Structure formats: C-alpha cells, structure tokens
C-alpha cells in the first residue's frame, strides 16, 4: 500500500541501483553486525558476565564470610562432589522432573481442550473464555500464588467452603498444606492455572491454520472427533506441540515463586524443587559456591532439553 503512494521515478532507480550495488553489498555484509551490536553488547554485559561468574563461583568456596571479606578460594570440584553426593539432591532432582512433567502434561492437555472449546464455541462464548484465559495469564505469578494460598486457607478459604456447600466433601477447616501430596496438588493447580492460557491460545492459533476441508473430509469418512484430532489435527500441529512441551518443561523445572509464596518447600521438604533447593543452599544457608554448582548442573539439564527445542526448530525450518 505504501508502494502505490510512491510513484516510481523514471530511469533514475535503474542507474542508481547499478551504481550502488557493490557498495551496498559490502555494507550489507557489515550491516547485520552493526544492528546486532547493541543487543550483543547488552546480552554480553547483562548475562554472559553473570553466567561466567556463576560458573566461576561453582569452583570456589563462597560463604557469607567470603562474600563480606571479598576473599576467593578456589576449591576445584569440591562443590560438585558435594552436590552429587548430597542425598537431598537425588531426591529433589527426580521430584522436580516428575513435577515438571506432570505440570507440563496437564498444561498441554487442558490447554488443548480449551483450544478445542474455543474453536467450537459461539463467538460470545469464545470471547468470554479467551478473555478469562487472558485475565489469568496477565496475573503476576507471585500475586497468583498469594491469592491461591488465600483461596486454600484452611480457616477462611473459599475452596473449603465451596467444596462443602456443593457437597463434594466435608472440608470445613481442612488443611491443604498438611501433607506433601495435597500441598503438591495445590502447587500443580497454581502452576497449571497460570500456564494453560499461553498454551491454549497458542494451540488455538495453530488450530485456525488447519484447513476445515480436511475435517469435513474425515467426518464424511465417518471418523469420530477423537479420531480426527489424533489422525489429522495433532500431526499437523506437532511442531507447535513440541515447542510448547519443551517450553513448558523448562518453565516448570525452574518454578520458584509459586512454591516460595505458598509452602516454602514444606511440609517436611516434600515440595522442595530445584529452584527452592538452590535458594535454600545459596541465599538461606550462604553456601553460594555449592548453590552455583547446582545451578550449573540444572542449566546443563535444561540446555539438554532446549537442544530438543532447537532440533524441533531445525526440522521445521528444513
């Protein structure tokens, strides 16, 4: 549209283009680097340097006294051997992975169901649901956690009240944070609640790209809704799903505020995930070196995951 507003000038462009070409080519070789420079510098300054520090710290003894006196003591692999021989690490790691898998799986499942609802609903209901999703999405994570803690309060919480009046259970005064199982359940609810909107809206965006004719054809052939989803929709959206799964896993592995503002890892450290474990070791117990070694290990794990992500991208690109 902008083009039609600028009528072509006669002859001139041709000559100009021919004349400028070599210069422009060399300029375009440098140009991307120039454009990239601020971001590269920014990322270098704001992230590469701290990451470098993080790795360095993982080979140092750094406790509160070291932090205050600004002393540096290199200890080789001590922090890593300590972490890898800490029994808690070996309970927390599989727990975190299982937890992240559960949350990510539920998020994708519920997100898909929401997306299918969005597609099938009348416009007004679609607007209602998508707005509802956006409201949850936009709620800051730590505020979401504080609200949910209050909803599940055993004394004044509305969850116990609603469960009781609807006759689902006699839950007056029920404490949701008394056992690891139920506390974990509440955490899953909080995380899934916050994560579904992004997934639902992304899948819905993907669904819109699936040509309706395909569905019609399948339906004519007598396929049921489930069958259509698994044999037509899902294969088409597979790259979207791969990406959403990997992103969800990474986000759920890193989860911290949702736990910190509700259970702080309790009861009996049953809801301590890697993020909380790092925080306890580092900030609370002032073993900054040891905490860094856990963080490095965790990052390696996540980079492994992200490698899947990149591979999915590559596949998509080719």
């Amino acid at each position, binding site marked *: 549209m902008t083009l039609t507003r600028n009528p072509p000038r006669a002859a001139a462009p041709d000559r100009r283009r021919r004349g400028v070409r070599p210069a422009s080519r060399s300029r375009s070789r440098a140009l991307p680097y120039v454009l990239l420079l601020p971001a590269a*510098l920014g990322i270098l300054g704001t992230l590469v340097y701290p990451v470098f520090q993080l790795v360095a710290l993982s080979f140092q003894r750094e406790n509160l006294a070291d932090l*205050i006196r600004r002393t540096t003591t290199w200890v080789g692999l001590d922090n890593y051997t300590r972490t890898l021989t800490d029994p808690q690490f070996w309970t927390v790691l599989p727990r975190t992975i299982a937890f992240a898998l559960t949350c990510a799986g539920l998020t994708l499942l519920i997100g898909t169901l929401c997306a299918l609802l969005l597609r099938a609903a009348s416009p007004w209901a679609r607007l209602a649901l998508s707005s509802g999703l956006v409201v949850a999405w936009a709620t800051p994570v730590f505020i979401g956690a504080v609200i949910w803690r209050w909803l599940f309060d055993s004394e004044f919480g509305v969850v116990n009240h609603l469960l009781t009046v609807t006759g689902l259970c006699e839950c007056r005064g029920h404490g949701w944070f008394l056992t690891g199982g139920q506390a974990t359940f509440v955490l899953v609810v909080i995380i899934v609640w916050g994560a579904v909107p992004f997934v639902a809206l992304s899948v819905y965006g993907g669904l819109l790209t699936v040509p309706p004719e395909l569905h019609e054809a399948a339906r004519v052939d007598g396929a049921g809704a489930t069958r259509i989803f698994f044999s037509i929709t899902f294969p088409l959206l597979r790259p979207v799903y791969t990406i959403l799964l990997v992103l969800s896993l990474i986000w759920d592995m890193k989860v911290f505020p949702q736990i910190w503002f509700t259970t702080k890892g309790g009861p009996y450290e049953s809801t301590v995930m890697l993020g909380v474990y790092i925080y306890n070791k580092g900030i609370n117990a002032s073993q900054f070196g040891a905490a860094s070694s856990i963080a490095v290990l965790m990052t390696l794990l996540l980079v492994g995951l992200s490698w899947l992500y990149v591979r999915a991208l590559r596949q998509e690109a080719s």
Partner: protein
Amino acid sequence: MRGLARLLCAVLLAGGLAACSGDGGEGGAATAGPGTLDVWVMRDSAPDDLIERVNAEVEAAHPGLTVRVQVLDWEGRDVKWKTALAGDDPPDVLEMGNTDVLTYAASGALAELKPADYENSGTWLKGLADAGGYEGKLYGVPYYGGTRVVIYRKDLFEKAGIDSEPATLAELRQAAEKLMKANPGEDFSGLYFPGRYQYGALPFVFDAGGQIAAKEGTAWKGMLSTPQSQQGLRNWADLVKAVSKAPLDVDTDADRFVDALGQGHTGMIIGQAWMMRGLGEKYPKLADQLGAFPVPGVNGTMPVFIGGSNLVVSAGSQAPAIATEWVKLITGTKYQTELARSGLLPNSTSLEGVVEGVTAVQMKAAARSWFTPQSTQWSNVDNAQVLQDMFQAIASGEKSVAEAAATADKKIAEILNATG
C-alpha cells in the same frame, strides 16, 4: 573482571539510562558519607517517636549529621542483611533478632563492641546478652526483649464464669473448655493455637524438662526424643487437640492472632506482649477488655523464650563512633525506661521497678527462660522449618510424637553439624 563489568555498565548507561542514573547515582554506594548515619530497625519494634528523639539527640551532638532510619520486615530480612553487609556502604546500625546475631558475628560482618561502654551491661537480660556474644566477645547490644504471654478477653472470661487467671496447665485447659462451652460455635477455640507455631509450642518441651539440642563434645545432638521432651510434646498436643480450632498448617501469623481474638473466634491466644498494642488499635472496643498472664506450665509458670532484638554495628560502618553513640543512647536507662512503657521488655533487670501492666507480667515470666541452641547453623534449622514440620505432624496426627521427634532430631543433628 571488575573493569569489564564497569565498562559494560557504562556502555549501558550511555545507551540511555542517564535519566535514571541521576536519580540512582546519589543513592547506594556514593551516598552516606560521614554526614549520614544509616540505621535499620525492624517492623514492630520500638515506637517511632522514641527513635526520633534518639536521632534528634545524636544529630544535635553532631551538627550536619542526618540519621536515616529504615524499617525492615521480618520476612526476608536475611537476604537483605547479607547483601547490604557485603556491599560497599553497609548500614551503620542494625537491629537484629537475637537468634540472628550469631551468624553475622561469625562471618565477620559485625564490629566488636565493648560491654563497658554501655549502661547496665552488668544486669542485661541473660537471653539477650548471650545472644549478642560470639567466642567471648560482644557484637550485639541487648535492645529489648519480648516474651510470649497468654492474652485473653476479659468479657469472654466473665461470660464463661472464669474468675481467676489460670496458674497451671490444667487450669488453662479448664478455662479453655469453659470458654468453649459458653461459646458453642463450631469454629470457636478456647485457646487459639496454630499447628506450626513453634515458639508457642517449644516452651512445653522445656517445661517438662526437655530441650531442643545439646552439644556432646564437638557434635550437636537433637534432644527432642528424650522422655522429658516427648512428655512436653504430648502435653502440648493434648492441649491443642482439645481446645484449638486454629489451622494446623500456619505458623505464627500476628494478623490471625489479632483477628481471632478481635473477631471473637477465641477467648485466648499465646502471643507476643506487644500484640496487645495492635489489638487495642485495631479493635478499640476491646482495648479495656484485654488481659494477660504468664503462660502456665505443669507446675507454675512455663519457662519462656526471651525473644527480642540486639543492636549491632556493621564492620564496614563509615562512622563507627557515631554508630556506637546511637546504640549507647537507646540502650541506656533513659530510653529503656520509656521503651518499657510501650510494652517491650527493657534490656536490664535493674529496670524492673519501672515496668507495669503486661510488661510486668513478662518480667515475672522472664525469671525462667531458655534459648535456642547457640550454633551458627541454627538459622538453617529455622529455614528448613524442621520444628514447624514436627509440630504440625504431631497436631494433625500425621506422625506419632516419638516418630516426629526422632525425625526432627536427625535433621537437627544433620544441619547443626554441617560444615559451612
């Protein structure tokens, strides 16, 4: 490395942060020259006007000096202190909870102080004086104490026909049961006692002759499984199960206490004495209906945990002389006497004569006191919520007393014997 960081930051600053750097530059590192004294106090400590008067007095003695006071919340205080004390311009004076001082003294963050410089240092409350010391040196000057007392509603006591303040554990339970009979609501607690409220529950252990942990040679050992400690835990559990409807999965939560009493969900709480001040402010109608008495034990008053605060001077303070002067002033007889009138326990037993009301109740209770194990790792037991988990598991019936105590002992030994 340092140069690199500064260079990169400079690049970013040049990139458009000039607008905020003007504002930012004056703070943090560059600020407080000798012209400022930074004092960090905690929420709910000494009344503001008292601190203001101390400031005025110090400022008058040093023309050109400004005292800047900041109020920190208890939640998250550690991370704030750690980063501030390791920074270039740490605050000069800090109020720390008495259980907090040891960790910081041991890591070289605090300046050594001389007891002789301070008034009444010979008669300081033992719990506070011990908490301020590390390897025989003084790092934290006792500021004020606080003990937990039973706060009750006189009107509800009257309605239930309770005519005297309970003096033993058995009488406490009877009173609570009478209150529940007189207020038959399903949610009414005779004594409101949240399940994770460790500082409320631990005195029961000491009352029965038990303790939390003890040092055997060089190693710490958890002592909650001893028969005495277990007896104490049972005493506590029996009481809580019988007369409290408070949630089991929450810890001390001043709001809940204040509101439970204020909204009439209970007739008694075991709370910090200063809560009475807040209760009276939030529920003015109740102001003259509140009473307090020492927490009764099996035989007479229960041994109390003397909570409270110490004042420390940071090792990196730019003005240590003025800092100590400020500390001297507020911990001296003159201001301690005023402090005592606001419901806080003054730092010295020599001031017994000036206290009245709830403070007198506390002073009386302070005669039998106990303290958390003196280990630099103790705060990690707190952070790991070992004791809260134990109490919660006992109250909910999730674990038996013996089981819960054994689990806690194991964890305590593990944490206290860990090497930093």
